[in-house]
C-alpha cells in the first residue's frame, strides 16, 4: 500500500506512456502494412459496376500487391470511375496498352483487381492516365487483339461463373432477372410431361408389336390363299367360268388383273410389316434408353425443383419407374 502511494506518479507514468507507445506502434504497423509511407502514383480506370470493390481492394500483378484503390464513384454515365494508386516499386510495370481485370470472390463478396500488362517494350504510362478495364470495350479490344493475356486463373473464373449463376438465382424476386430459375422450373415440368408421354408410347409399342405380329400372320395366310386363288384363276377351265364368260374377257381378265395388283401390294405390306417387326425391339430399346436417361434428368431437376428451401424434396415415385423398367428386358 505504502509502495503504491509513494510511487503513484511513476506507476501511472509507465502505465499511461506504455499504452501510448503501444498505440503509436500499432499506428506505425498499420501504416507499414498498408504502405502508407511508400510513394504512390495515381491512375484512373472505369468499371461497369462496383461489385466487390472497396476502399481497401488491392491491385495485383503476377500475384504481387502492386497498388490499391484510392477512391471510386458513380459517374453520370452510370459507370464507376476508380482512382488507383500504384506503389513506387511497381511504377515501371504500368505501360501502354495495359488493362485491369476485376474479379470477386462470390463467398466473401470481396473482390480483387488484376493488372494485365501490355505488350513488352510499351511506353511508360504517365501518372493519372487512364488504364482501361476488361469491363469496357477498349479493354475487351485489347484482349481481342491479343495485346494482353488474361491470366489462367481457372479457379477464379469458375468462381466468377458460380458467382454469376448464384447472383442470378438470388434475383428471383425480380421478374426480369429470375430467368434461369424459371427455365429450370419449366424444364422440370416439361420432363414430367415427356416422361408420362413416353410411358404411353411404350405401352403403345408393346401393343403394336403384338398386333403387327398377328396381322402379319393373318396376312401371310390371306396371301397364300390369294396366291392359290390367283393360280386357280390363271387357268380358268372350270365349267362355271366357261358358262359365265366363255371369251374370258368380260370377267376373268379384269379379276385376274385386280388379284395380281393385290398380290403385289400385299407382298409389299408383308415386307414392310416384317421389317417393322424386326426393327421394333431396336426402336423400343432406343426409346427405353432415352426414357431412362430422361428419368435421371428429371430426378435431378426435380431435386433442384423440390429443393427443401424451395419445395418439398425428392418424391418417392421410383417404384413405378422400376416396374416399368422391368417389363422391358423381357421384351428383348
Amino acid at each position, binding site marked *: 500500500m505504502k509502495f503504491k502511494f509513494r510511487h*503513484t506518479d511513476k*506507476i501511472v507514468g509507465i*502505465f*499511461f506512456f506504455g499504452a501510448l507507445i*503501444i*498505440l503509436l506502434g500499432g499506428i506505425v504497423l*498499420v*501504416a507499414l502494412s498498408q504502405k502508407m509511407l511508400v510513394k504512390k502514383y495515381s491512375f484512373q480506370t472505369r468499371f461497369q459496376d462496383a461489385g466487390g470493390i472497396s476502399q481497401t481492394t488491392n491491385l495485383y500483378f503476377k500475384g504481387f500487391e502492386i497498388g490499391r484503390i484510392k477512391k471510386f464513384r458513380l459517374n453520370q454515365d452510370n459507370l464507376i470511375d476508380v482512382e488507383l494508386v500504384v506503389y513506387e516499386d511497381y511504377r515501371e510495370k504500368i505501360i501502354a496498352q495495359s488493362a485491369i481485370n476485376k474479379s470477386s470472390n462470390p463467398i466473401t463478396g470481396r473482390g480483387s483487381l488484376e493488372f494485365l500488362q501490355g505488350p513488352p517494350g510499351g511506353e511508360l504510362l504517365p501518372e493519372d492516365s487512364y488504364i482501361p478495364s476488361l469491363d469496357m470495350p477498349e479493354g475487351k479490344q485489347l484482349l481481342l487483339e491479343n495485346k494482353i493475356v488474361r491470366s489462367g486463373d481457372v479457379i477464379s473464373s469458375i468462381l466468377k461463373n458460380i458467382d454469376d449463376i448464384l447472383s442470378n438465382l438470388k434475383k428471383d424476386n425480380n421478374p426480369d432477372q429470375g430467368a434461369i430459375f424459371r427455365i429450370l422450373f419449366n424444364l422440370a415440368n416439361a420432363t414430367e410431361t415427356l416422361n408420362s408421354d413416353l410411358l404411353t408410347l411404350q405401352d403403345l409399342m408393346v401393343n403394336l408389336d403384338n398386333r403387327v405380329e398377328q396381322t402379319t400372320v393373318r396376312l401371310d395366310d390371306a396371301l397364300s390363299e390369294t396366291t392359290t386363288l390367283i393360280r386357280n384363276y390363271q387357268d380358268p377351265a372350270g365349267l362355271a367360268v366357261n358358262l359365265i364368260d366363255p371369251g374370258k374377257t368380260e370377267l376373268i381378265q379384269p379379276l385376274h388383273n385386280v388379284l395380281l395388283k393385290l398380290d403385289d401390294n400385299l407382298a409389299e405390306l408383308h415386307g414392310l410389316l416384317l421389317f417393322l417387326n424386326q426393327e421394333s425391339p431396336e426402336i423400343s430399346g432406343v426409346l427405353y434408353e432415352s426414357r431412362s436417361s430422361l428419368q435421371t434428368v428429371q430426378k435431378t431437376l426435380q431435386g433442384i425443383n423440390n429443393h427443401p428451401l424451395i419445395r418439398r424434396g425428392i418424391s418417392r415415385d421410383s417404384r413405378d419407374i422400376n416396374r416399368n423398367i422391368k417389363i422391358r428386358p423381357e421384351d428383348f
Partner: protein
Amino acid sequence: MNGFLEFIHFTAETWRRLLTYTRQRQASFTVLLRQIMFTGYEALGLISFLALTIGGLIILQGNNILGNFGQGDLIYVILVTVVVRELSSILTALIVIARSGTAISTELGNMVVNQEIDLLLSFGISPVSYLVVSRLVGVVVATFTLTIYFNLVALLGGWLFSSFFSPINFNFFFSRLFAELSFLDILISVFKSMVFGIGIALISCYQGLKVNIASTEVPQRTIRAVVLSIVFVLFADILITLMFYIS
C-alpha cells in the same frame, strides 16, 4: 427533464473548469494521479484476463465455424471487427463502470453527507474543478489506456489460441492482422474509449453530488449512476458506429 437540463449545466460547468485546469496546481494533480491509479492501473489485471479469454474465445468459435467453410482467413477480419471495433471499448467501459463509476458516485455522495463539499466551497475550491475535473480526466485517461491494453492482450490471446489449433508464425499472424486493421479502426477504438470515459465520469460524479443530506441516498444514486452509464455507453456506441461505419 429538469434533471437532464441540470446535467447539461453540470457538464458545461465541468467543461469550463476543465479549460482552466492548468491553473489548478498541485492539489488536483494528486487527485488525478490517484484516479488513474485506481481506475486504470489497478484494473489492468482484470482487463487483461478478460481480453485474453475473449480473444481466445473468438478464435475458438471462429475456427470452429469458419474452418468448415475453408474461410479461416476471415478470423482476422472477425478479430478486427469484434475486438478492436467493438468489444475492447465496450468491455473496458463496463469494467470501469463497475469499479470506478460506483466508487466515484459513492465517494462523492458520502462527501456531500459529511459536509466535505461545503468545506471545499468554504475554501473557495470549486468541487467541480477539484473533484469532478480530476476524476473526469483520470477516468478518460484510464479508460483510453485500458482499451489499448485490452486490444493488445486480446489480439495476443487470439494468436495464442490460434497456435493451439495449428502452430502459426507470430509475424505472419500479426502481418495478416495489421493488413485487415485500418487507421479508422484504431481511431474509433480510441475515440470511443474517450467518449465512454467522459460519459461514465460525468454521470457518476453528477449522481454522487446529487445526494442531498442522507447517507441512504448514496446507494440509490450509485445504482442510478451505473444504469445511466451503461445506457449511455451503449447508445454512444451505436451512434459512433452509425457515424463512422455506416455512412
